[in-house]
């Protein structure tokens, strides 16, 4: 497989993960009887929840400030839900425990929920994973439970998802292990639920990023199409611009992160803005994508080393994604090598989140489907 094909596949995986999260959380939002959305049900993504004093310190003595589940559902009439979505798990099972340790961190009397007293009485925990890995993951889980390495006190379930490419594509969800508090929903999910993709076409088109760094070309494409082009089109030169002509567009990394967050992340579904709701996309992801544009001669950083203001040489590209795949492939290869080196040096250590903007791996820099832990310490 060529590097471009591999990048395309990773973009597809990333989108599938977003679609799976959206499909799953909407089980709780959708009222089957009325066919309407239940506006009182809140869904959120990447929110920082605070651990109870009992779990505020790791066995190694490190302080745990937050846990950040991939998705959360707050239903005033039923149990709340927290969970992670992992399309794939690494071949090496030694890293799988990290994923479950992260999930057990949600098995706690957490505070910071998006409700008045910031707490809920009860909540379920769900692992959403792809059908191709679910049997192995369930087997692994049961072995580790048997060995006393994993234990959940709250209801925990493993749910598989798969996109079925039939005549009318749909996502199929099926509970493979455990029990959800809502007995009726648990039974439905045990039998398997198929959700046609056509049902979610609006939401698929608005939520394009979740709390994991997208593949570089996908990020660059979003920036180009949804942030740079609207600014370029404000220029009186835009319409008459020939293909070989360039138009300079100035913008900052903060503006990029802010505009994509407001228009294309889960913020669209849960617009509450608090310190607990970290910005998605992270500024560092935007900077990395802009670095790739700079390396490809499509932009330059202005001024100092802070990498904030950028001048983009806007051109009318025939196929933005194809161009971004070509421009970002070298940067992506370099980044993968860097990550591999990091993993070799620290083989069993979970990915630590260094300060924003640093080149090392973070929770935010976790690629789609990787099984890195998501506790922010």
């Amino acid at each position, binding site marked *: 497989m060529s590097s471009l094909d591999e990048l395309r596949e990773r973009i597809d995986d990333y989108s599938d993960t977003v679609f799976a999260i959206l499909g799953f959380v*909407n089980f709780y939002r959708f009222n089957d009887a009325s066919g309407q959305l239940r506006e009182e049900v809140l869904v959120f993504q990447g929110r920082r929840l605070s651990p109870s004093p009992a779990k505020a310190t790791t066995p190694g003595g490190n302080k745990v400030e937050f846990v950040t589940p991939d998705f959360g559902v707050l239903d005033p009439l039923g149990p709340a839900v927290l969970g992670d979505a992992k399309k794939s798990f690494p071949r090496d099972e030694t890293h799988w425990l990290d994923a479950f340790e992260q999930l057990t961190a949600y098995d706690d009397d957490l505070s910071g929920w998006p409700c008045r007293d910031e707490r809920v009485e009860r909540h379920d925990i769900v692992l959403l994973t792809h059908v191709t890995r679910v049997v192995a993951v369930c087997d692994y889980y049961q072995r580790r439970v048997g060995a006393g390495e994993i234990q959940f006190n709250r209801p925990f379930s493993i749910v598989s998802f798969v996109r079925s490419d039939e005549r009318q*594509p749909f996502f199929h969800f099926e509970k493979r292990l455990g029990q959800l508090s809502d007995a009726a929903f648990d039974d439905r999910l045990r039998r398997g639920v198929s959700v*046609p993709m056509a049902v979610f076409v609006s939401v698929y088109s608005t939520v394009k990023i979740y709390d994991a760094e997208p593949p570089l070309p996908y990020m660059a494409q979003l920036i180009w*199409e949804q942030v740079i*082009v609207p600014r370029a*089109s404000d220029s009186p030169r835009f319409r008459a611009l020939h293909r070989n002509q360039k138009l300079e567009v100035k913008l900052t990394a903060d503006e990029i992160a802010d505009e994509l967050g407001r228009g294309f992340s889960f913020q669209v579904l849960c617009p509450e803005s608090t310190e607990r709701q970290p910005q998605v996309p992270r500024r560092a992801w935007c900077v990395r994508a802009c670095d790739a544009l700079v390396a490809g001669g499509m932009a330059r950083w202005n001024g100092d080393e802070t990498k904030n203001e950028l001048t983009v040489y806007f051109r009318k*590209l025939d196929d933005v994604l194809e161009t971004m795949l070509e421009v970002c492939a070298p940067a992506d290869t370099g980044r993968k090598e860097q990550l591999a080196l990091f993993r070799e040096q620290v083989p069993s250590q979970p990915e630590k989140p260094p300060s924003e903007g640093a080149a090392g791996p973070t929770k935010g820099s976790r690629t789609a489907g990787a099984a890195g832990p998501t506790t922010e310490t």
Partner: protein
Amino acid sequence: MSSLDFLRPLYEHSHGREALVREMDAVLGGQRLVARALPFYCHLPAADWVEQSPLLRRCASRIRSGDGVHVFRCSLPAEDSATGLTDEPRFFIYDHPEYPGVYVLLTLASPPFFKWVQSAVEKSFPVAMTTFITHRTLRRLLQSFQAEHGLSRLVIRRASLRIRYGEYAEGRRRRVVPLVSWPNWELQEAFDWVYQQNGWFQSLKFDACRDHSVPATVSFTRQGVTQTDGLFQGVFSGFVEPVCKRIHENVNLFGQRSRRERSDLSARPLVIRFDADQVAQDDERRRFVQAMKRLGRASVSVLHGNPYVHLSVLDYYDGSAFDVWVLSANEITIVPQMKGSIAATKRLIHHIFDDYAEGRIDDYRGGLR
């Protein structure tokens, strides 16, 4: 000079909309003239549009405005004396009484002048825009026109066709093929043939026959441009008015689709629905993607090509952006992003209808926000 005597009152006297159509009809009856009409949409008032038009502002001056009719005189280009108009050509802009922003450009001047003034409308895109008439609508308009005016036959004199290639060939760009023919066919035959060829009429010129007489030879294009040498009132009500209505409906349907126009930034998708399972097969979906890649002045990126289709489309006229999805066997869904202007939406759908297949445009209903 006799023709000038007929035309002078038409241009110099003030008349309302209905009187203008009636008087143009009367002029055609006595002269060898052709009336030409171009319905279009513009969000500016008619006089402002002429003043801002890159082509018209230098040479068009307003003679008079009133009762929904504006009269303009042009100093360029040189007029064709064969029309009987030896002085500066003139044109009317008919401000539609029911449909805001919908205008009809009317003139009795020569074909070169009409082409020139038509290009002024086209070059004003996206400020001004014409519409597109589907094959099915064209057929319905012709049948209604024939029935309402007691015409025995409509005989095609000249047809400009476009044939969409039905097969997809890997690595080869297959385009819509233009054809011109003068088949002398009757309406039914011509439409059946074009349907079988997976094509559409770009324009039709036909004789409107009443027994052994031909009271009018009429031309009608997919963009709604209408020309006739007789029966102007009937042609106006039978072709121009329905095109104005279609423009109005499309403006309403395509308007306010930009996500940034709503406080919650939600999307308001549109659906192109087909009678049959048009996009059920893999090769059809590939053909659709190929057709989309031919959209000019745009970026078309394929996020997913098969089995479902997800495209990201950028319009380089005004920066509008769309997600285009094929997720069912008989529907294409268009999701305008932060900016999805009326003009860009119209251009995108027009391209799909021209290069791929025609369907019915509808508001997206159902599904989840």
